[in-house]
């Protein structure tokens, strides 16, 4: 069956969104777990292709074991089940590119190479500790998120499948098996012998080589030639292909790729130690000490773009590609090598705007034992902070081990490669809560910022939200040494969105003007976010937004005016009524529509006559939004005009909206006339309102 045919269908509690890959044995889809509302990767395998019952049981056992792996650099397997001879494996969906695409035929810059290598090695070592061998380590199985985190995919799934089938390699190729590429096999695997963890060490050596040189070490025109190369040949030295690679790396790669398993690293931990030494030698901006789960990912200024930052300098700042395929940069190899060996101060080590932050579990100062609060607060805070894309937040799994220990936050910060650490405590007394916290700079141990929050203890969730919001207000922005105004002018849309989010929290005096400026951004997402941010400032932003709306409308800059109109509606000040009415009468479709929506939000009944008039405009979008606005105004005098639209409008969407508005106005007026409702007891009304919440 064409794998695209099941797009849109729901299997168990997974709704299939799109096909990601397909092969003879497995089809892979992006899907949504509708129960948990999270995006997953769903792998669907035909159990028959796994072989006999024993092989299936082995596969299931190993996959279930792998699903117990909890490591920030391993893509989590959420669940596995079997139905009607088909296996469904739901895995974490990871945004980003495969390492294969990140390498894209070019060597990676050393810091990025080491960062990725350390993360992957740590993940594989941890899996080996649990007795799980990957057997299919290759760049295609390693995802790199936009923030530089590596995630190893398919633990417990990879080669087991291939091995447990009886298909010879040639037939697998015919079937188009996704596991067909032999370039990353160890010699013992290529010979068809059983492999152990040292097979993973070999494959990882190949990945290291490819990251360092941009090329695979063993090549051939067909599988037989590749198998021969793996068993008998030695690749060219790394330095021949990338003069910037640390010389020690060659030693590590040679030992990992030793033909005889007995000559290799006997464990991934040994290899990891050597990598850490190399990384310490070249003095990354943040140290990478023992025992970390997630090494610091050095990222050059976000302005340069992440992939660019990964490349050694001689591959960056290339002339614009020319030629039909965009591949020929018209530079001779000699020129390129000459440039490559010229030292440059543009080496990507020190992150510019990027900051790494670790949040420690909050300590309870009270007598409560078995208290989940510290974790609740930690998780909630990390989840909120993770929205800021120019901050790297250390995952909670790396910090929970510091619970109940008197640790020195700056030590922890250095251990985790974080620029700063947030540490705090709380005390619950009666119905009051006090949360104290400090932001500590890892390098100096100095206190960058401190806060004390006193709150009445309401429901856990509401109190948590309030604490989070207050902490982030204090934390984000200048406290972390980043000027948010710079973010708003960044080339990257994501960073500009971050800047806007920070502005909302920062209480920066310049925020309102800067956000009003951002209403004219080139990206609708940024414009819309700026409007929403301005809405949070309420009346403080009314005058600035009014002026922006008037100027942009008058100047014919309708895109800016549209989002200024949106901001005006969210602000909800009557000051904006006149310019919004002016904008409603404007010919520009989106501006007039947005103005109508905002007039509805504003709830000022003086807008009714203009909105009723706008119901007759030739532009369906304006009629639609005017009907919405009149519904929100809830003025029964609009019912006649709305009923007419609901019956006669040529656009069915407008009809539906107008009919809703009529029903909404009628019901609201019925409800206000007869409260509490005659048919529902006060008790039932209370339950209903709680359910709705």
């Amino acid at each position, binding site marked *: 069956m064409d794998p695209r045919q*099941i797009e*849109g*269908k*729901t*299997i*168990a*509690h997974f*709704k*299939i969104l799109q096909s990601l890959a397909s092969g003879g044995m497995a089809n892979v889809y992006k899907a949504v777990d*509708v129960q948990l509302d999270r995006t997953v990767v769903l792998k669907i395998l035909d159990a028959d292709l796994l072989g006999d019952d024993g092989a299936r049981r082995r596969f299931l056992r190993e996959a279930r074991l792998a699903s117990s792996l909890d490591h920030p650099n391993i893509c989590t397997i959420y669940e596995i089940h079997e139905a009607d001879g088909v296996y469904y494996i739901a895995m974490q969906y990871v945004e980003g590119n495969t390492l294969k695409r990140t390498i894209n035929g070019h060597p990676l810059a050393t810091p990025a190479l080491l960062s990725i290598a350390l993360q992957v090695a740590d993940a594989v070592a941890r899996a080996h500790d649990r007795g799980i061998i990957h057997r299919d380590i290759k760049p295609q199985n390693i995802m790199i998120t936009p923030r530089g985190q590596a995630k190893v995919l398919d633990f417990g799934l990879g080669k087991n499948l291939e091995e447990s089938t009886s298909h010879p390699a040639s037939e697998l190729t015919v079937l188009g098996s996704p596991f067909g590429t032999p370039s990353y096999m160890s010699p013992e695997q290529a010979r068809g012998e059983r492999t152990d963890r040292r097979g993973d060490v070999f494959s990882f050596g190949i990945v290291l080589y490819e990251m360092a040189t941009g090329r695979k070490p063993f090549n051939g025109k067909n599988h037989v030639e590749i198998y021969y190369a793996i068993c008998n040949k030695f690749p060219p030295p790394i330095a021949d292909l990338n003069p910037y690679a640390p010389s020690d790396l060659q030693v590590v790669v040679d030992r990992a790729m030793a033909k005889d398993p007995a000559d290799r690293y006997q464990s991934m931990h040994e290899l990891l130690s050597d990598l850490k030494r190399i990384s310490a030698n070249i003095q990354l901006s943040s140290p990478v000490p023992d025992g970390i789960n997630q090494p610091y990912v050095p990222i050059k200024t976000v302005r340069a773009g992440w992939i660019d930052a990964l490349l050694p300098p001689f591959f960056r700042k290339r002339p614009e590609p020319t030629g039909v395929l965009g591949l020929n940069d018209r530079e001779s190899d000699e020129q390129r090598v000459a440039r490559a060996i010229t030292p440059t101060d543009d080496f990507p080590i020190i992150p510019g705007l990027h900051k790494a932050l670790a949040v420690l579990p909050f300590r309870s100062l009270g007598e409560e034992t078995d208290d989940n609060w510290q974790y609740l607060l930690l998780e909630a805070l990390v989840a909120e902070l993770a929205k800021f894309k120019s901050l790297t937040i250390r995952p909670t799994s790396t910090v929970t081990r510091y619970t109940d220990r008197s640790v020195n936050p700056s030590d922890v910060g250095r251990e985790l490669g974080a620029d700063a650490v947030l540490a705090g405590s709380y005390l619950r007394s009666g119905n009051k809560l006090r949360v104290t916290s400090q932001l500590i700079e890892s390098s100096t141990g100095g206190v960058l910022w401190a806060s004390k929050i006193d709150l009445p203890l309401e429901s856990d969730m509401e109190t948590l939200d309030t604490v989070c919001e207050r902490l982030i207000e204090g934390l984000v922005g200048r406290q972390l040494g980043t000027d948010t105004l710079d973010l708003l002018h960044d080339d990257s849309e994501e960073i500009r969105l971050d800047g806007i989010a920070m502005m909302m929290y920062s209480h920066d005096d310049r925020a309102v003007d800067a956000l009003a400026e951002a209403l004219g951004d080139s990206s*609708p*997402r940024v*414009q*819309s976010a700026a409007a929403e941010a301005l809405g949070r400032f309420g009346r403080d932003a009314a005058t600035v937004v009014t002026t922006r709306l008037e100027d942009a409308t008058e100047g014919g800059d309708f895109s800016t005016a549209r989002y200024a109109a949106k901001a005006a509606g969210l602000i909800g000040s009557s000051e904006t009524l006149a310019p919004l009415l002016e904008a409603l009468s404007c010919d520009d*479709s989106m501006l007039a*529509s*947005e103005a109508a*929506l905002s007039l509805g939000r504003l709830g000022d009944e003086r807008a009714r006559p203009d909105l009723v008039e706008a119901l007759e405009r030739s*532009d*369906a*979008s304006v009629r*639609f*939004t005017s009907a919405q606005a009149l519904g929100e105004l809830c003025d029964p005098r609009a019912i006649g005009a709305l009923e007419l639209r609901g*019956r*006669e409008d*040529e*656009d*069915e*969407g407008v*009809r*539906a*909206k107008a*009919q*809703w508005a*009529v*029903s*909404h106005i*009628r*019901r609201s007026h019925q409800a206000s006339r007869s409260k509490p409702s005659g048919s529902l007891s006060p008790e039932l009304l209370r339950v*209903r309102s709680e*359910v*709705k919440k």
Partner: protein
Amino acid sequence: MTTEQLFVGVDLGRSTRIAVVDSKGEILYQRRDPSHLESGRELIDGLIDCVQQTIRDSRSIGTVAAVGFGLPGLIEHPTSHVVMLPNLADVSSIEVYDEVSRAIELPVAFDNDANAAAYGEWRSGAARGARDFIYITLGTGIGAGIVEGGTLQRGARGFAGEFGHIKITTDGLECSCGSSGCLETIASGPNIVRRTRERLFSDPGFSTSPLAEKMKGKLTCEDVVDEALGGDPLARSIIAETGLYLGMTIANVVNLLNIEMVILGGPVMRRNQPLLDAALGEASYRAFAPSFSMCRVVAGELGEDAKVIGSAMMARDQMVGA
């Protein structure tokens, strides 16, 4: 001179479709006229005119023996009193059945249009030979015809089958039926377009959708389906969400009635494989497995013709006392 017995089927909506059908359910001739929505009076007078004209026009091919009407509203059974036609006009002061049967001077059958369409699919479409099924029509509104034990189920007063007014949430939108949270506020054609328009405003990420270009003018449910088939993420998500609620409601009905078949028809289902797939997936996930395992969910075979054929077949069977 030919004496073939003919039946007329009428599908009254925002336009009026009238077909002349032979006794086997084949359409021989049909016409479509705009309905007069200005008032109830004009609507009914216009309807009578069109039917009379059709009967006269068909004399060359046979003799009309009976006329069936599928009407979008509440039709009381067995009195055939038209209680309301909510999406068309106010007919509360008109005795529609009496006036129409007096004017036409032939046996007349009145039923809800969803029942008529179900009857059509039953007699000559996807449900031929079935004894327990539900036919769901998705258009301006959402209705259903239910057949259980080989009998069309109309309920105590004839108002059974209001599938579109099954509640799917506690805090949904107000519906024109006076309640809120009805399936119809999500999955009817107009509401699919309404949701699309709302998303185009609320999510600037969709400003590049082909649907955004059509916002100023007339946007139809068909446009949304077309773009979903073309892979537009906005259209696909709207259809997928529609399927989620539709499938959930289907699961409820399957659990309640243990039917052997669910047939989806009406204008919204036209070429709408994505919606059928999404609804099927959700229903299979939600429904009680032993019930669902023997239940097929399919698209109707007669498409737009289901209502006129069904009305005509109802008139035929009522005349012969079937």
